[in-house]
C-alpha cells in the first residue's frame, strides 16, 4: 500500500476570460461628473428652494415698506383729526337741527305773511307742519296770504283747511291753514321712498 501513490488532482482551467473592466470610479473625469451632477442638484435646490423664497420674502418686505410709507403720509394728514372732530362736534349742527326748519324762521314768515293782514289766533308748529288760525281778513286776502306763504323757500305746500265767514259786515273769515315745511317733509318723503 505504501508503494501506491494517490493520484493528485490539480485545478484546471480550460478557458480564460480575457475581458477586463477597469475601475473608473476613481478616474478624475468620473469624479468631475459626479461633482458636476451634485453641483447641478445643489444649484437647482438653492435656486428653487432657497433663493426664490428669500427673494420673495425681500419683495414682500419692500412692498410692506412702501405700504407703511403710504400709511405714514395718511397718519401725518390725520394728526389733527381728533382736534377737528372735537371742534366739529362743538360747533356743527346736530342731525336733529339739520333735519328741522328753524322755528324762529317759521315765526318770521308768519309775521311777514300773515300778521300784517290778519289777527293770528293760534300757531302750532310740530313734526314739520305749521297750523295757523287767523281772522279779520276776507277770503280774497286769505288767498293772497296763502300765495305769500307758498312763495317762501321753507314752505313745501299750503292747505287751507277751513275758512268760515264771521258775522262782520265785510265778509271777513276765520281761516285755518296747514303749512308743510319743505325741509322736514322732503326728508319724510325721502324716507318713505327708500326700500
Amino acid at each position, binding site marked *: 500500500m505504501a508503494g501506491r501513490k494517490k493520484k493528485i488532482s490539480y485545478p484546471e482551467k480550460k478557458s480564460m476570460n480575457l475581458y477586463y473592466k477597469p475601475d473608473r470610479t476613481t478616474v478624475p473625469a468620473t469624479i468631475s461628473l459626479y461633482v458636476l451632477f451634485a453641483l447641478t442638484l445643489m444649484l437647482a435646490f438653492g435656486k428653487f428652494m432657497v433663493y426664490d*423664497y*428669500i427673494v420673495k420674502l425681500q419683495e*414682500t418686505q419692500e412692498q410692506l415698506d412702501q*405700504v407703511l410709507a403710504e400709511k405714514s403720509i395718511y397718519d401725518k394728514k390725520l394728526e389733527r383729526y381728533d382736534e377737528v*372732530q372735537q371742534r366739529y362736534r362743538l360747533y*356743527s349742527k346736530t342731525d336733529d337741527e339739520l333735519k328741522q326748519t328753524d322755528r324762529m324762521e317759521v315765526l318770521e314768515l308768519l309775521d311777514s305773511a300773515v300778521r300784517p293782514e290778519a289777527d293770528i289766533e293760534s300757531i*302750532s*308748529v310740530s313734526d314739520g307742519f305749521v297750523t295757523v288760525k287767523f281772522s279779520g281778513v276776507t277770503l280774497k286776502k286769505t288767498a293772497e296770504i296763502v300765495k305769500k306763504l307758498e312763495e317762501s323757500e321753507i314752505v313745501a305746500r299750503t292747505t287751507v283747511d277751513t275758512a268760515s265767514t264771521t258775522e262782520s259786515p265785510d265778509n271777513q273769515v276765520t281761516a285755518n291753514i296747514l303749512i308743510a315745511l319743505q325741509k322736514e317733509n322732503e326728508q319724510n318723503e325721502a324716507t318713505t321712498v327708500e326700500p
Partner: protein
Amino acid sequence: MKRRLSSREVALLIVLLVLVAASAYYLWFYVPVQERQTALEGQILDTQNAIEIDKVRVVKMEQMEEELRQIFADDPNPVSMAAYDNSQRVMFELHAILAETDDYSLNFSSVDTDGEDGIVRRNISMNFETGNYEAAKDVLQKLHDSDYRCMMDDLSINVEEHTETYNLFSLGYLFSDHTERRTPTVKTVTSIKVSASIVFFEYL
C-alpha cells in the same frame, strides 16, 4: 480597523443624510421663511385696510374743516355745545329768560344719553304766558339765541282774550257818604299762552 462599508450601508447612510438635510431645511429654513412671509402679507393687508379707512377719514376731515370754515364765516362767534352735565346753567338761563314772562312752568323730562353721536339731549317742556305776541316772540328768540345750544319743537302759541272786571272808586268816594258809586269797568285782556318743548344739547 478600517472596513469598507457595504453598498447597502452606504445607501442607508445616504438616505439618512438626505432625511436629516431635508428635515433641517424644513425646520430651520422653510417654516420660518413661510411664517415670516405670511406675517408680512398679513401686515400688508392690515396696513392697506387701514389706509382705506384713513382715506375716508381724510375726506371726512376735509369736509368737517370746510363746514367749520363756513360756520365761522357766517358767524365769527358761533354757539358751541356745552359739556355734560350742564343742567344747572341751563336752569339759570331758563330762569333768566322766562323771568320776563307773566307766568311760566318747566317740566324737565328725560335726559337722553344714548345717542350714538355722543350727544346728550336734555328735554324740557315749558309753558309760559305773556301779555302780547311781541313779548312771547322775544322770549322765544332769547331761548333760540341762548348761550347753550338748543332746539325748539312742538311750539304752540295761543292768543287768548278774556274780560276782567274792575270796580274803580274815585278818591272822593272814600270820603263821601258812599252814595256815589262808580260802575264797574270791564276790560278785555289779551294773553299769549306759549307751550314748547326744548332740547338742550350737551356732549359727553
